[in-house]
């Protein structure tokens, strides 16, 4: 599958060749079809735009009149100030920091482990390799819900009397359970995706490096890693969005402790307790959206590639 259009020379060389889509489009390109496209585009944009505009309107305006009446102003940053620094118990700043603290290790750890494992599955020979790979692959289907209760009780009461990872007394206040859970849940998909990419690298490259006396660790770090960067980026952005936007893992393994909850948990809570405070909700929503939106827009290319490589996340 390819997303790129054919090079211009090919197109102009062939005499007015038309793609199936463009022919089909012609049929659909009557006024109604164009209207449909515009309606879809509007429906997909206006709800977000409305909330964005509201987040800049003063409290009484947001609560008193529709955002479409307030397009000419007045605008204010007061909502953001209140949401970020907590004029009234909102205080998103702490939760944004929690989100960052949760997300970075939860992206780094599974990517590293998965790249190593994917390399082994692709280029190392060991007994039971195929069976093990199929097993890892098959575990993609496990919905994370089915693992949560046992995993949580294992964190609270680990075997062999190891340190309990959950609860207020736990090291890092419980961050470790969230990091560990996100890392584990990401592994099967990450290994599968990176393995697919890795198999596309020509085997002669590795073979010749080995003839030259390079070990697996050298091949991995000097040849594979640079070549794998696009694939790693593709999965990285995927995992980043997943972790940053996650609510379930944070709720279950964060135990509702506000010290370690990410911004999604705070936003959901605000929606429950102060559902009518649209000036706070709108600003809060955009505080939580801005980071993933920036990451997403700047790395969209890699994200699409990851999607096309078949990403299903449990």
């Amino acid at each position: 599958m390819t997303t790129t259009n054919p090079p211009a020379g090919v197109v102009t060389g062939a005499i007015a060749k038309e793609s199936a889509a463009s022919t089909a489009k012609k049929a659909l390109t009557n006024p109604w079809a164009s209207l449909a496209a515009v309606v879809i585009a509007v429906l997909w944009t206006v709800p977000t735009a409305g909330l964005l505009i509201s987040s800049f309107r003063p409290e009484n305006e947001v609560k008193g009149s529709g955002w479409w009446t307030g397009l000419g102003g007045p605008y204010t940053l007061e909502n953001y100030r209140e949401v970020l620094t907590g004029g009234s118990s909102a205080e998103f700043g702490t939760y944004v920091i929690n989100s960052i603290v949760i997300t970075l290790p939860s992206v780094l750890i599974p990517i590293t482990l998965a790249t190593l494992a994917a390399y082994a599955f692709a280029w190392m020979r060991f007994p039971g390799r195929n069976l093990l790979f199929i097993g890892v692959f098959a575990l993609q289907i496990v919905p994370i819900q089915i693992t949560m209760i046992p995993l949580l009780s294992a964190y609270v009461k680990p075997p062999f009397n190891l340190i309990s990872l959950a609860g207020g007394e736990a090291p890092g206040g419980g961050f470790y359970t969230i990091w560990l859970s996100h890392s584990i849940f990401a592994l099967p998909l990450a290994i599968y995706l990176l393995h697919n990419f890795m198999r596309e690298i020509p085997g002669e490259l590795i073979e010749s490096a080995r003839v030259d006396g390079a070990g697996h660790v050298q091949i991995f770090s000097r040849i594979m890693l640079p070549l794998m960067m696009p694939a790693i980026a593709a999965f990285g952005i995927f995992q980043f969005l997943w972790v940053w936007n996650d609510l379930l893992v944070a709720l279950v393994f964060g135990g509702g402790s506000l010290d370690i909850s990410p911004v999604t948990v705070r936003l959901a809570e605000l929606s429950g307790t102060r559902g009518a405070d649209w000036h706070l909700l709108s600003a809060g929503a955009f505080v939580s959206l801005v980071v993933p939106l920036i990451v997403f827009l700047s790395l969209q290319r890699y994200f699409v590639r990851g999607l096309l490589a078949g990403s299903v996340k449990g």
Partner: protein
Amino acid sequence: MPVEHDLDPTGPAPASESPPGSSSGEGSSLLTRLLPILTFVVTPVVIVVLLIVLATLAGSIEIDTVSGKFLQMFIAVALFVVVVGGILLMTSRMRSRSGELVQTAAFVLPAVLLICLGLLYPAINNIYQSFFDRRGDEFVGWDNYREVFTDEALLLVLRNTALWVALVPVLSTLIGLVYAVLVDRSPFEKFAKALIFLPMAISLVGASIIWKFVYDYRATENDQIGLANQVLKSLGFDTYRFLLTEPWNNLFLIVIMVWVQAGFAMTILSASIKAIPDDIVEAARLDGVGGLKMFRYITVPSIRPSLIVVLTTISITTLKVFDIVRTTTGGNYDTSVLAYEYYVQSFRSFDQGLGAALATLIFVLVLPIVIYNIRQMRKLEAR
């Protein structure tokens, strides 16, 4: 094909040859000879010391300040780097056949062990727990499952889930497909796609809040702040409680999920449409096929495998989604779905057995779709 690994079974001899890319000159030959010994003796000691220091730090640093949190984060990453880096360092110089095996283990085992401990064991344990009572003490056989299929509230949950799984994939795919065709090769294709694509970057909590605002209810005579009710009012209708009116509120929640998923469908299908070979289209055109017929008989059949992958993938995602219901209605007003009910039973009502049964049910429902999905993906890859 994988590389044969018994190229140099002569032990550590090749280690003295400089590996490709390394800049070691002749003067460092003593160092390269000493290095294996050093790594085997010193590295483990350094690693253990580092681990003890880091673990002590992790246990003592409080996270009630911003710097404390970031410190914990760096400690976690450092712990990880020391463990994995140490393992790689210690195994990197092994060249004998058994050394190869140790090396392989260093690459594979961390991931595989984590998967076994964090996915495989809990999944099996969960299925086992689903046959026990709410506190997990007493074996109750199939009682939990019987409750799921007989309790009135839970039957409603099943109905809602069926509604979600039936509607979300079909609507998202349909909208994604039509939109992909409509904007294909138009001058502003990239921008038009980005508009539909953006909701994918938004958390489901964020998306729910965006739509909750659209659905906001005020009595008809008041000024409206929700767009949907403003539209109704402008058209001369009474305002409507979109999130509270049963059973239609389920549809309005489903709209949110469709809004998020259509971008995914559009991306995959658009790529697939662009990959249709020109000669097929040309042949059909010479046969006088055009317009809607082209769409029906050439475009859709050509992208059939992608269509199925998109449909199944969205079905799986939909079955597991709980954020939307939790944020918009909290499962009230007859809107709960399986994934949300699982959360409520497990972590609010603390009915472990029932929660485990609901999780198992999600798994059982997902299973056939995933298997079908994987087979379709294989077909796609084989093409």
